């Protein structure tokens, strides 16, 4: 049976500049995978390619076995792949509630567990602030909105790019706790994470990226710290503590 | 405290060279000087019709070069340059009719008066940016038109004509009649033509020198990334204001010259958005914005189109509009963009190429 999402020799360019070189990853139903790597390794680019923001040739990305690499973001979203983009990117002219509502714009026909009510239940603070402009929230609250917004489309694949950026640890804990709920509702998740410890904790499998290539992959239990370290920083590095 | 690399530089003097010109550009420059020199003799050789066509080409070229400097290099998209054409032209008429000044002198002075108008204008316009700036300059030009339409001594909204004697007796006209037996209207044409030739050449040389100078470098930096340029000590605002004032002078002088030759002025004509800004924008865009070559090509294309098709009236204008749209969509760098992409030519190179006197290092070319 086909994987939920699969890439085959994925490449990505910004103009003439190549950011991703022949990446193969696989995501199975109900799985959480983590992509780790240094700044500029190409993690966000990979996410953007999956979400259709960067167009590829069709066969490079498969969703349930169908080629979707050439589809634009709106069509990818309509198929049920939602991205929580790097840096939150809320809509400043919309209120919190409107930001959430717009998440379902492309998938209004799809019913699912995620509605305004269930999002508010997950992040009660948002309900209190729902009439505020999104930009008036703290960083962490904004991140909750961004996640809620993606959930509103009831995706079966949730792509999360650097969720914990600017978040207090306690918020991070809440969010990762919520992931259990999300997985239970049948969605698969890809997270991009710079925090290796966190990644190892939540992911079923890890992909480590460097300079646009996958340099290491495996289950957390199979990987040893030194390997990750080498993949992360290049070989023979100054030992971290 | 000594900083950075100062010490090292002293040891290595004269090792590095900067080269700007290329073989193509050298040949072209020679050709250009030759052409300009030959064009001086045109009034004695070719018919008046040709002289007037050349006058049209030269004045439009000058307007195009100055708008290109403003929009293409300084990023100031003005749709109000007709303000300076109009002010220059009215300055000419005012000086000639009211003070009896010689038109040739008045043309030069007109540039300064246009600049005087540009100072308060800049004060308003530079509070705006992007599309706001464009609309703002348009409104300011309209204000100029409406104000001059209130100047009753120069005919108000009716406009006025240049006294015949003024052009007939203008500086040098008598000499031309005496020496070459030119009729006064022919002599006036010739004088206007020479002024246009000098002005166009001077403008191109000026723009080129400016681009090759430190200011040109700063301008290019601001155009590419204003934040970074400012952070590196480039005074973007001052540069832009400078360019704005300079183009006002050039545009004012051209305006005066054009109306010296037309001999009749009215606010609607002198402040015409279509004639002095829209056509100029077409010329620049069709030729290739942000290059010196572009306006030159553009004005030739425009002239040919105008001569061949203007008898088709509105169909011609319709086609011109459509051409501008198509160019912008499919060849945003204009005709010159297409040519230089194919051939790699640069007739007015401003690129500073670093050359190594000791040939220790191999440095990539601009396309390598």
């Amino acid at each position, binding site marked *: 049976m086909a994987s939920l999402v699969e890439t085959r020799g994925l490449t990505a360019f910004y103009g003439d500049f190549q950011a991703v070189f022949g990446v193969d990853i696989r995501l199975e139903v109900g799985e959480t995978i983590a992509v780790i790597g240094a700044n500029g390794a190409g993690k966000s680019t990979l996410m953007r390619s999956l979400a259709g923001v960067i167009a590829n040739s069709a066969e490079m990305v498969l969703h349930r076995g169908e080629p979707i690499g050439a589809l634009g973001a709106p069509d990818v979203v309509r198929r049920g792949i939602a991205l929580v983009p790097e840096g939150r990117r809320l809509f400043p002219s919309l209120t919190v509630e409107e930001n959430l509502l717009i998440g379902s714009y492309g998938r209004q026909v799809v019913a699912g567990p995620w509605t305004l009510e269930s999002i508010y239940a997950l992040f009660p603070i948002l309900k209190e602030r729902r009439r505020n402009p999104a930009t008036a929230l703290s960083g962490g609250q904004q991140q909750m909105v961004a996640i809620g917004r993606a959930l509103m489309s009831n995706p079966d694949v949730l792509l999360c790019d650097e969720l914990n950026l600017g978040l207090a640890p306690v918020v991070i804990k809440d969010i990762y706790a919520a992931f259990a709920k999300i997985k239970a509702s049948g969605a698969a998740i890809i997270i991009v994470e710079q925090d290796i410890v966190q990644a190892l904790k939540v992911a079923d499998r890890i992909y480590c990226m460097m300079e646009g290539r996958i340099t290491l992959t495996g289950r957390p239990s199979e990987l040893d710290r030194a390997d990750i370290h080498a993949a992360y920083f290049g070989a023979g590095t100054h030992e971290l503590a | 405290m000594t900083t950075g690399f100062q010490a090292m530089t002293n040891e290595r003097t004269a090792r590095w060279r900067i080269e700007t010109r290329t073989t193509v550009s050298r040949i072209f420059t020679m050709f250009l000087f030759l052409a300009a020199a030959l064009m001086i003799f045109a009034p004695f050789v070719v018919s008046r019709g040709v002289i007037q066509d050349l006058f049209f080409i030269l004045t439009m070229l000058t307007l195009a070069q100055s708008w290109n400097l403003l929009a293409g290099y300084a990023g100031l998209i003005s749709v109000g340059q007709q303000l300076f054409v109009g002010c220059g032209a009215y300055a000419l008429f005012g000086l000639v009719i009211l003070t009896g000044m010689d038109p040739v002198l008045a043309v030069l002075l007109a540039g300064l008066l246009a600049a005087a108008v540009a100072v308060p204008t800049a004060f308003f316009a530079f509070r705006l940016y992007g599309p706001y700036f464009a609309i703002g300059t348009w409104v300011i030009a309209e204000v100029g038109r409406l104000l001059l339409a209130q100047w009753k001594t120069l005919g108000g909204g009716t406009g006025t004509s240049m006294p015949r004697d003024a052009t007939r007796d203008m500086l040098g006209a008598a000499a031309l009649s005496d020496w070459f037996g030119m009729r006064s209207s022919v002599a006036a044409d010739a004088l206007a033509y020479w002024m246009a030739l000098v002005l166009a050449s001077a403008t191109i040389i000026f723009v080129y020198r400016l681009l090759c100078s430190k200011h040109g470098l700063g301008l290019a930096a601001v155009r590419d990334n204003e934040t970074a340029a400012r952070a590196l000590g480039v005074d973007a605002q001052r540069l832009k204001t400078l360019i704005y004032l300079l183009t006002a002078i050039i545009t004012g002088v051209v305006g005066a010259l054009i109306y010296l030759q037309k001999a009749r002025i009215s606010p609607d004509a002198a402040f015409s958005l279509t004639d002095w800004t829209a056509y100029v924008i077409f010329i620049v865009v069709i030729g290739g914005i942000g290059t010196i070559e572009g306006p030159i090509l553009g004005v030739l294309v425009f002239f040919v189109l105008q001569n061949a098709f203007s008898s088709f009236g509105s169909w011609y204008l319709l086609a011109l*509009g459509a051409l501008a749209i198509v160019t912008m969509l499919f060849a945003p760098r204009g005709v010159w963009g297409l040519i230089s992409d194919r051939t790699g030519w640069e007739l007015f190179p401003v690129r500073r190429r670093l050359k190594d006197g000791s040939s220790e290092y191999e440095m990539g070319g601009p396309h390598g």
Partner: protein
Amino acid sequence: MNWLDTLLQGILLGGLYALFAAGLSLVFGIMRLVNLAHGDLIVLAAFLIMLIVSSFGLNPFVAALIAAPLMFGLGWVLQYYLLNRTLGKDVLPPLLVTFGLSIVIQNGLLEAFTADSRRVSAGSLETASVQIGSVNAGLMPLLTFASAVLVILALNQLIYRTALGRAFRATSDDVVTASLMGIRPNSIFAVATGLAMMIVTVAALYLGMRANFDPTAGPARLIYAFEAVIIGGLGSLWGTLAGGVILGLAQTIGAAVNPEWQILAGHVAFLLVLLFRPRGLFPRAVD
């Protein structure tokens, strides 16, 4: 001098300017697109209404109802196939393309309809008036003003109360992220321009019934429309109405002092507002 009358006429005139400006404001606010052909599109719509009135002998209001969807289609096609390609951080391409478009429309109309100045006749409505206290207000200007308020009210409802409106605002904020919500920016923009063209039809209706128009009448309307939008502040529709009223008032007050200063007074008011509030009276928080 009758100041009450001057003020009333100024406000009513402002309604007309606000109508000219509302469509522009919508497009400008959502796409940062400076549409230099807006005035010509108003004139085009006026010709369309005139054509419908004269070929089917319909009432102008009914004719506008027929013209509106046609104009929507035109706007949609224009945006989808032409203007969308010009959007970006560079302001020059949209300026130039719409400038070219303006010339194409003007001369196309000239070929089709000659330079004769035309009119959409509204019969006795044209000269009807009502007494308000000591002053007379024309029914037509009152209707124009009411329509302007209505159009802006409806637009506000649409933009702040519907999913489509949310999509407009979101796309205006951030095109890429909007596409991640399943919004197709190109189509959304096309719909916005289509809507703007429907407002243009309303403006054209009143322009055509109020005064003559000819194929070259567009640019003069455009400049007022722009001034109203910018005075009001980018993206604020009520601001646009306020901008129109300020412009109208400046003109009538200027004219009451001396008709020679009428149009100038409007422009001067515009420049003064910009001098003190470069981003207009009610600018949007994020820009």
